[in-house]
């Protein structure tokens, strides 16, 4: 049998080396400047402090249709993930009367902004199609409705899993935001 030619292997090798060099160069350029080069300082995120959090009911805007089970699942998953962060002594639910006694309470609002219903079958058969995604505005406010922190978070399920897994992904991201900010 004719042995494999070295030319393709070499060309693939040099192609890989070139790609790696480009990636390294791009990542070095993307990094913030060193201390020698002064640059406008990024706004430092001040850590919030609170001993308790209350999650308000998720009420989507009238022009946005979200399945009720998705809405309920989002609420419950966020409650579970907030408890898991262990950043708060109490995690109160919406309407909980005992929350009135909490000294420094922050209120968490989840405002749905977009919802794309996917398909589990499409995801598993076609792979690149059928993703489910929920975009939510996460808003931490004080008891007096003063906005303390606001950020958009997107929950997705792309390849494997039921549609409701997008709510779990969203809750994990909200928990990560809480870990960053508190």
């Amino acid at each position: 049998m004719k042995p494999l030619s070295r030319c393709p292997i070499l060309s693939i090798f040099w192609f890989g080396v070139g790609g790696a060099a480009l990636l390294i160069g791009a990542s070095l350029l993307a990094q913030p400047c060193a201390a020698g080069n002064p640059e406008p300082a990024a706004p430092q995120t001040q850590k919030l402090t609170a001993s308790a959090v209350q999650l308000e009911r998720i009420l989507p805007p009238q022009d946005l249709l979200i399945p009720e089970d998705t809405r309920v699942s989002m609420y419950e998953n966020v409650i579970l993930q907030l408890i898991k962060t262990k950043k708060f002594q109490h995690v109160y639910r919406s309407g909980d009367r005992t929350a009135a006694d909490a000294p420094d309470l922050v209120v968490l609002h989840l405002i749905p902004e977009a919802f794309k219903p996917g398909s589990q079958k499409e995801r598993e058969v076609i792979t690149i199609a059928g993703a489910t995604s929920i975009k939510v505005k996460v808003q931490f406010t004080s008891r007096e409705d003063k906005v303390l922190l606001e950020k958009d978070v997107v929950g997705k399920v792309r390849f494997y899993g039921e549609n409701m897994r997008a709510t779990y992904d969203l809750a994990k991201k909200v928990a990560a935001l809480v870990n960053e900010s508190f």
Partner: protein
Amino acid sequence: MRTRKRSKSEIPADAPGSDPFRLNGRASESNPIRRKNKEMRIRSVQTILGVSSTQGELVRQSLRLARLLVICVGLVFTASAAPSFGQQPATPQNPPSSTIPDVKCVIGLENIKPGATGTLASLPTGLEFTTGNKKAAITISSIQDVFTGRESRQDVSGMGGTLVEAAIPYGGGRFVSLFSHKVDVLAVEYVDSDGGFHGAIFVLSAGKATAFKNQLVAQGAKVSTHVEAPEPKEQKQ
């Protein structure tokens, strides 16, 4: 014995000695067209009767294989369709039962692990979910709203199913993903003793959620009118 020579059209088809596949005869030997025709007939007879012929055997073997393949594919389809066939007629015949087995509590009940499977019962006081030795109850007075929906679930799912699908060569796992079944989703919004808002989600077999919801409403559970969200894509097909 006297025999009268008859023309070919006069000879009946079932008459003895009128065998169309007879080989010997002077006429056939003399006329080349007739001889050719007879040879062709002989070949066809050999194929039909199964006389040793390699081509015929090959055809028979391939036919046998094709038959086996069709039977196998049919069995696979029947097996996959069996659960859905079993569920559909049960819906209109059964009256709304107070206890539904094999219900999955997705999330939202106190002291019940998310994803637990158990029995959902409708009691005069409310609804009760039992799994193993754990129980969770929601009283009728605490229910704020009840929603029902319909979703599609894959027949082969979970970690094990995903591994099996990945193990099938040539992307065969995608074929397995085509098989799914419908399920009903029941979402119950309720408040606890402190007024805290909760939501519980149950996944039931198809056609049982609406009857259960109606039972809860008849017992006095609050239900609001709401706009139906669009169903996922696979349910429209």
